[in-house]
C-alpha cells in the first residue's frame, strides 16, 4: 500500500503531498528507520567515525598482507628472542621475522624487517600485535554483541509481550544483574571460568555476554510495549493469530531496528571492556595478539615508561581510535534516536 503511494501512481496524490523520490533503501527499511540511517551520515563527526571503522575493517581483513603470519597460529605474536627489556622502534628483526610483504620494499626501502613500533617485553613485536589484534578485536566484539543482543531480545520480548507478573519478575532479574558494577562482575565471572576453560578468549567473552544483555532487553522491551498497542496487532489477535507468530512476524520486525543499530555500535565498548579485562590479567595466554595484553605489559615497566613510551602509545592509540570510531557514530545515533531532540536541530 505504502509502496503504491510512494511510487506516485496517482497524480492527484502526487500534487497534494508533493512526494519525494524514494530510493530502494528507504523502501526496504521504511521511513522511520531510513531517517535513522540518514542521520548517521549527516554530521562530519559521524563520517570521521565511519572512516575510522572502515580503516580498521580493512586492516583486519588485510592482516595477512600487512604482516604475513610466522607460525601456524597467526594470532601468536612472533618473538625476536627472549630478552626482557623492550627494544626501540626500528630496531632490526633478527629471529622469527615474517616474510617481506608486498608493500615493504617500496615504502621501507630495505630488505630487512625491522620492529616498526619496537618490541614489548619478551620481544613480542608491537606492530604485529596491533595488526593481528585488530582481528581479535572484531572477533570478540562481533561475537559478544551478537550473543548479548540475542539474549537481550529474547528476554526483553518475552517480558514486554506477556507483561504483568512475567514482566515484573524478568525486570527484577535484570535489576539484579545490574547491581554489580559491570567490569567487576565480568572480571569475577572470567576469573571463575578461566580454570575450567583455560586461558583463551572465551572466559572474557562469556563474562561480557553474561553481564551485557540487560541494556538490549530494556530497550527492546520499551519499543515492543509501544508497538503492542497498535491496531494491526489487535487485528492479528482478532483473527486468531498465535502468540509466537504475532511476536515474531508482526511485532519484532517493527520494533527491533533501534536495538539493532545500538547493538552494532556497542562493538567499541565491548572491545574496550575486553581490553580492560586483558589489562587486569584475565584472558588470553601470554603472547596472543590482543591490544589489552600489549598494554598490560607496560605495567611491568612503569618506572622506565619514558624510555619505553612506544609500548603504550601505539597500542593505546590504536585502541582509542577504534573505540572513538564507534563512539562518534554512536553519538550521532543518539541525536537521531532521542525523540525529545527530534526536529529541533
Amino acid at each position: 500500500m505504502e509502496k503504491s503511494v510512494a511510487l506516485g501512481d496517482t497524480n492527484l496524490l502526487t500534487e497534494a503531498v508533493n512526494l519525494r523520490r524514494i530510493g530502494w533503501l528507504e523502501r526496504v527499511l521504511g521511513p522511520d528507520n531510513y531517517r535513522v540511517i540518514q542521520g548517521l551520515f549527516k554530521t562530519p563527526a559521524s563520517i570521521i567515525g565511519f572512516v575510522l571503522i572502515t580503516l580498521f575493517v580493512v586492516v583486519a581483513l588485510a592482516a595477512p598482507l600487512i604482516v604475513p603470519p610466522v607460525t601456524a597460529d597467526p594470532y601468536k605474536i612472533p618473538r625476536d628472542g627472549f630478552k626482557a627489556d623492550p627494544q626501540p622502534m626500528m630496531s632490526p628483526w633478527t629471529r622469527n621475522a615474517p616474510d617481506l610483504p608486498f608493500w615493504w620494499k617500496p615504502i621501507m626501502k630495505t630488505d630487512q624487517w625491522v620492529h616498526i613500533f619496537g618490541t614489548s617485553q619478551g620481544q613480542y613485536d608491537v606492530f604485529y600485535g596491533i595488526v593481528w589484534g585488530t582481528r581479535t578485536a572484531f572477533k570478540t566484539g562481533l561475537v559478544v554483541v551478537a550473543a548479548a543482543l540475542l539474549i537481550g531480545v529474547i528476554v526483553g520480548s518475552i517480558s514486554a509481550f506477556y507483561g504483568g507478573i512475567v514482566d515484573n519478575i524478568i525486570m527484577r532479574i535484570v535489576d539484579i544483574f545490574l547491581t554489580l558494577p559491570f567490569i567487576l562482575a565480568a572480571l569475577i565471572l572470567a576469573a571463575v571460568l578461566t580454570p575450567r576453560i583455560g586461558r583463551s578468549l572465551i572466559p572474557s567473552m562469556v563474562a561480557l555476554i553474561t553481564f551485557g544483555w540487560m541494556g538490549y532487553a530494556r530497550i527492546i522491551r520499551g519499543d515492543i510495549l509501544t508497538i503492542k498497542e497498535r491496531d494491526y496487532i489487535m487485528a492479528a489477535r482478532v483473527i486468531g493469530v498465535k502468540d509466537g507468530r504475532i511476536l515474531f512476524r508482526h511485532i519484532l520486525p517493527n520494533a527491533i531496528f533501534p536495538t539493532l543499530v545500538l547493538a552494532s555500535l556497542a562493538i567499541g565498548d565491548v572491545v574496550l571492556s575486553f581490553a580492560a579485562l586483558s589489562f587486569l590479567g584475565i584472558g588470553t595466554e601470554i603472547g596472543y595478539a590482543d591490544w589489552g595484553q600489549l598494554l598490560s605489559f607496560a605495567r611491568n615497566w612503569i618506572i622506565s615508561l619514558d624510555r619505553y613510551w612506544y609500548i603504550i602509545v601505539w597500542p593505546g592509540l590504536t585502541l582509542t581510535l577504534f573505540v572513538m570510531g564507534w563512539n562518534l557514530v554512536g553519538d550521532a545515533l543518539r541525536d537521531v534516536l532521542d525523540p525529545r531532540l527530534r526536529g529541533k536541530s
Partner: protein
Amino acid sequence: MTAYIIRRLLLVPLLLFGVTVLIFGMLQFLTPVERSALYVRDIPKTEKALDGVIKKYGLDQPLYVQYWRWLVGTKDQITGERNGGILFGDFGFSRVGSQPVASLIKQRFPNTLDLTLWAVAPVILVGIWLGIQAAVHHNGFIDQAGRIFSIVGASFPTFVFGLLMLMIFYSKLQWFPPGRLSDWANQVVLSGSFRSYTSLLTIDSLLNGRIDVFWDALKHMLMPILTLSYINWATFLRVTRSSMLETLRQEYITTARAKGLRENDVIFKHARPNAMITVVTLAGFTVVGLMGGVVITETVFDYPGIGKAAADAAAQLDVVTVLGFALFNGLILIIANLVVDIIYAVVDPRVRLS
C-alpha cells in the same frame, strides 16, 4: 512518603536474595575442594581430610542446603565456633591475601574510602560546573569543546590514560609516584607514636599533626583523582547539560526573565536547583561506585584499595576472594542505592507520587 519508603524497602530483601544467588551461582563453577576455602583456612591436602571437610560442611549436599549453609555457616557441635556464614561477615579465606577475606576487606576499604573522600569534589563539582557552562552557552565554544571532550573522554580507555599519566608524571617528571605512601611515611605510620583514629590516612595524619605524611598521602592520590575526574566528567557534563537545557526551556524561566531578573539569578537561583534533581542521582551513584572500589584506576596506579585487591585476586584466580569482594560490593551498592532513592524522593516530590 512513608508508602514510597516502605515500597522501596520491600525491594531490598529481594535484591539481596538475587545478588547472593548470583554470586552463589558463580561459586558453583568451583570444585568442592576449591569451595572448601569458604570454610577452612587450609585447603585439605589428603584425600581423607578432603572427604572430611566436604562432609562436615556439606559441600556435596543439594544446592539449597549449601546455599543456606553459605549464608549462616556451620556451628561446631563441641566448641560452638562458627565457620563460614556470609551473614555473619565470614566470606571465607583468601589464598592470595593469606588472611580471611573479611579482614582483607577491612584492611583495604579505608584506602578506597580515603580516595573517594578526596575525589568527590573534583569529580562531581567540576563535572557539574562544566555541564552548566555548556548548557548556558548552548552551541557556543564551551558547548562544542565539551562535546568533543565527552566523546574523546568516553573513547580514551582509563588504563591507557593512567599509563600515560604515569609515563609523564612519574617516570619522566618524578612528581607523583604510584602506590599509597613513600617508604619513610609508611615507617612513620607504622611506628607506635602514630595513632590511628579513623584508618583514613589523610585524616589520621592531620589528627596526628603530621602535615608531611598528609602531603605524601595526597601526592599519591593525585593521579588516581585526576584519572577518576577525567572518566566521570564526560558523564556529568552530558547529564547536567541536557537536564539544564531542558529546564531552561521551561516557561517559568521565561517568566523569570520577563520579570527582568538578572541572567545570573535566572540561571543559578531558578534553573539550577531544578536541573540538579537528575544530577543528584548520578552523583549518588558515582560516590557509591567510587566506594565500591575502582578496579582499573586502582590497579593502574597500584593503589591498595579494594578494587585493586579484587583485581589481584582475579588475576591469580583466587575465586573465593574475588567473590567475597563482589559480595561486599553488592551489599554497599544495595544499601547506597536505597539511600539515594530515598533522598531523591525527598528532593523531588514527583517521584514518590508516581
